[in-house]
């Protein structure tokens, strides 16, 4: 059966990203795409903090960056600051960029290890332009000149996800996507194949289609309830299962990074937007009462709260199959990984891209289904390991929660990675997957996982060679002087349009 009509069940970030992505990526096919959503059902509004990959998605859609940032109250994001994770009082930034000269045969963190020993350098952060930019509250656009240090980093956005969804809704509707208001009451399936034929709405309207995208959030109405995907529970590795979100007034200049502060039984986010600051407390209900979690959040805000606390419940894990029959799951219906590394929007994007690459030509082919499920499983597994690392690589013993995560058993795949790094500073590399070498280095070193031994080739470097590499820190400082303050950079880039939106 030729696919002529795709029905997206659910709006929100996942639904409208799917609509926008597919109407653009699959435009040559002339498909009919419609999205069913109900204003009665709220959206989680995941992913206020994003990753650089999102810029490529937006570019593929042909979105104007200034317009987008203005419409979503976005700020620039160069990384995430982690406070109190390795020990209380510790702080490090996981940047979107490299450390040190990248054209070396020896990975730079080994060189830095020796520099530290020689008393030449205290912080690897001094070799990272995005870290230093973040620390100074500055921003500059990356260069395309591969010879320039300004080419060694990337950036993302901190934005209002609900406004982003609205922005994409306008884009999608302008590009032919039909929105249907309504609550899904029942799913009509083919008796023989089990494929979904239509969604029956509360209004009595029947929305039929050839292929369905489940963006119904945690309910997983199609992929889970109807088609029987099983949720693979990872809460023994990622035990946080609650979050409270609240916005507060903006104070001072917005910073070009997100902050994640470890708390007694979880962690707290702080995401600076142009007009307000997003905050949230992610915690484990086994170790903390809801009210206590809310109290911690409300008493640690920068300024006065400007919204009512929004409570969320979740469980870490993923559906064992994200494509069944003529339906895929995108967003929270496909699984959930807490927003510690801002991966929610990335996973939506990954699902849309994989589907566009594997979209059936003619009937559903099980080989496409298997490949989609393999690719998404790989994405989830590798992000999961990276998130678990943040909890497990800690010296904190000040609460039952930290004692649990510090001593828990971890996935074998992560254990292998950590053992390798601890013993010899080797970062296990892979081609497919989100977090690459610099990300792992940031978290390992930031959380005091120091290798017992370094690459022995480093010991053959002369002091003159080490000193020559030290010059990069001076070059970074020189470049920083040319960068503008983040607030100024924002105002110059999209200030006028932002004023129009406000």
């Amino acid at each position, binding site marked *: 059966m030729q*696919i002529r009509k795709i029905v997206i069940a659910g709006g929100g970030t996942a639904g409208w990203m799917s609509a926008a992505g597919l109407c653009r*990526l*699959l435009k*040559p*096919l*002339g498909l009919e795409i419609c999205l069913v959503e109900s204003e009665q059902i709220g959206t989680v509004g995941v992913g206020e903090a994003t990753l650089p990959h999102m810029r490529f998605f937006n570019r593929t859609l042909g979105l104007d960056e200034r317009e987008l940032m203005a419409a979503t109250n976005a700020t620039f994001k160069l990384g995430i600051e982690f406070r109190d994770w390795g020990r209380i009082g510790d702080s490090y930034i996981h940047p979107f960029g490299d450390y040190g000269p990248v054209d070396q*045969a020896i990975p730079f963190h080994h060189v830095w290890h020796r520099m530290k020993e020689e008393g030449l350098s205290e912080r690897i952060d001094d070799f990272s332009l995005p870290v230093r930019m973040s620390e100074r509250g500055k921003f500059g656009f990356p260069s395309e000149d591969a010879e320039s240090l300004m080419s060694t980093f990337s950036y993302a956005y901190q934005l209002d996800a609900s406004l982003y969804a609205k922005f994409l809704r306008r884009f999608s509707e302008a590009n032919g996507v039909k929105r249907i208001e309504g609550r899904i009451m029942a799913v009509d399936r083919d008796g023989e194949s089990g494929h979904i034929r239509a969604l029956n709405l509360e209004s009595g309207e029947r929305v039929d289609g050839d292929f369905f995208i489940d963006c119904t959030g945690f309910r997983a109405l199609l992929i889970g309830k109807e088609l029987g995907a099983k949720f693979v529970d990872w809460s023994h590795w990622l035990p946080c299962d609650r979050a409270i979100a609240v916005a507060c007034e903006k104070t001072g200049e917005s910073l070009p990074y997100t902050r994640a502060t470890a708390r007694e039984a979880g962690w707290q986010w702080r995401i600076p937007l142009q007009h307000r600051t997003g905050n949230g407390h992610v915690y484990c209900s086994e170790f903390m009462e809801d009210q206590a979690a809310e109290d911690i959040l409300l008493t640690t805000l920068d300024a006065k709260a400007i919204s009512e606390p929004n409570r969320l419940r979740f469980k870490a894990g993923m559906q064992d199959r994200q494509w069944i029959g003529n339906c895929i799951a995108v967003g929270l219906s496909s699984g959930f990984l807490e927003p510690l590394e801002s991966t929610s929007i990335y996973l939506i994007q990954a699902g849309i891209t994989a589907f*566009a*690459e*594997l*979209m*059936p*030509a*003619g009937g559903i*082919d099980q*080989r*496409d289904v298997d*490949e989609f499920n393999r690719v998404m499983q790989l994405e989830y597994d590798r992000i999961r390991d990276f998130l678990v690392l943040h909890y497990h690589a800690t010296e904190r013993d000040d609460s039952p929660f930290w004692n649990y995560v510090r001593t828990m058993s971890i996935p074998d795949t992560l254990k292998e990675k950590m*053992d*390798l790094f601890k*013993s*010899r500073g*080797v970062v*296990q*590399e*892979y*081609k*497919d997957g989100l977090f690459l070498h610099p990300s792992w280095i940031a978290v390992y070193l930031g959380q005091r996982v120091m290798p*017992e*031994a*370094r*690459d*022995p*080739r480093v*010991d*053959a*470097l002369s002091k003159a060679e080490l000193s020559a590499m030290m010059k990069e820190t001076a070059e970074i400082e020189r470049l920083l002087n040319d960068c503008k303050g983040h607030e100024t950079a924002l105002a110059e880039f999209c200030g006028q349009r932002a004023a129009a939106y406000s």
Partner: protein
Amino acid sequence: MMRTVSILGGGLDAWLAALFVSRKLEGLCERVVVVAPEASEARGGVVAYPQSRSLLANLGLSEETLVRETDGAFLLGAQFGAAPGYVTAFGSYGAPANSVPFHHYWTRLKEAGRAAPFDAYSLGAEMARHGRFVHPSNDPKRLESTFGYGVALDRTQLAALVESKARASGVKTADAPPDDAWLQIDVRPLAGDALAPWADLPPMAGKTLDSLDQRAPNLSCWKIEGSPDALLVSLPSRSRTHRMILGAENKQAAGRVAKPWSGNLVSVGRASHRLPGAMQTDLMVLLAELDLLASLLPADGQPLEIVGHEYNRRATRMMDYVADMEALVMGAGRAERAVSSPSLTRRIEQFRSRGRIVTYDDELFSEQDWIAALVGFAGVPERVSPLALGAPIDAVAHNYDGFRQAVGRAVSRLPDQQTYLSHLLETAGAS
């Protein structure tokens, strides 16, 4: 600490390993010893893949040195079958449209009976077929930027060159392994049965027939002819042709060792794996193994288990994927064949299903390499990306006919490699 590295075995592999250790681990290994260097070097040719060029240059073996001193010639790919045959070139085929790779459109054209051979849409393949060569352009907008190149070398001359450089770097020889070796690198050909056989490859071994003192008519590609049971591989160097027959005469199963790193002994090159040799990957794999080894060397007094385990995980995957490619071009992709390698099975299945190219971590071959091989040896995909179906077939044909004609015009303008090489060597010599 005085570290001694001993290289067990002789010939090109041994001297290359010795040179690698003495140059890349300079200051770390004070003594490098080649044990049993008298092992005779196999005659014939050897291929430096594009992936290996920079590593060789780091060892003091620039492409100019290689071409000048080892009777070298630039290689653009391999030709399978008698002329015109099918050429797997280093580089791209066609150009994507709507973000969809060219082979999807080519599949449509083929179904419509309007496709030229796939390799006619590759500048690298057409240059290889016609014996042309220039260095690629750095401007990504130009057609002349779409190909890569390796170098074909005379094995005996290369071994002599590498040995002289290794000795100049302080490498010594010995009759017996030193007792105090920190690390031993074994390059001796794998004896007996491989512990992890590659069942998709026929049990055959390469045997050098001769090196003809007759200049190859085409320097830009090597040729593989015959049947899967007995293949003749002809590899050019600048002044002669090296011929090797791959046959079942020796009945040595293809495969690899299960754990190339054990204790302080690391098996690389012919000691780690045995392949028939159609794809001439020996040098590429050896250099990649040495590079991996250097990146995982243990620190003083450190237990080897963890780094050894990581080396084995990555090196065995790397070898298995190279074996996938060798098996594919030797017939594993034929429709009637059952394939046992899970990774190759997935590659073939996904390609036949809808032209999807599956690649893995630790691959030595690029996605482009796999496209060329899968189109040539795994049949035509049953389906293409729906995105390739949007444009009318006439428009697709018009677009890619134009591309193919541009390839043809470019090839006709480019010099014959003999001419190019002569000029290059003269110019370099003069400067």
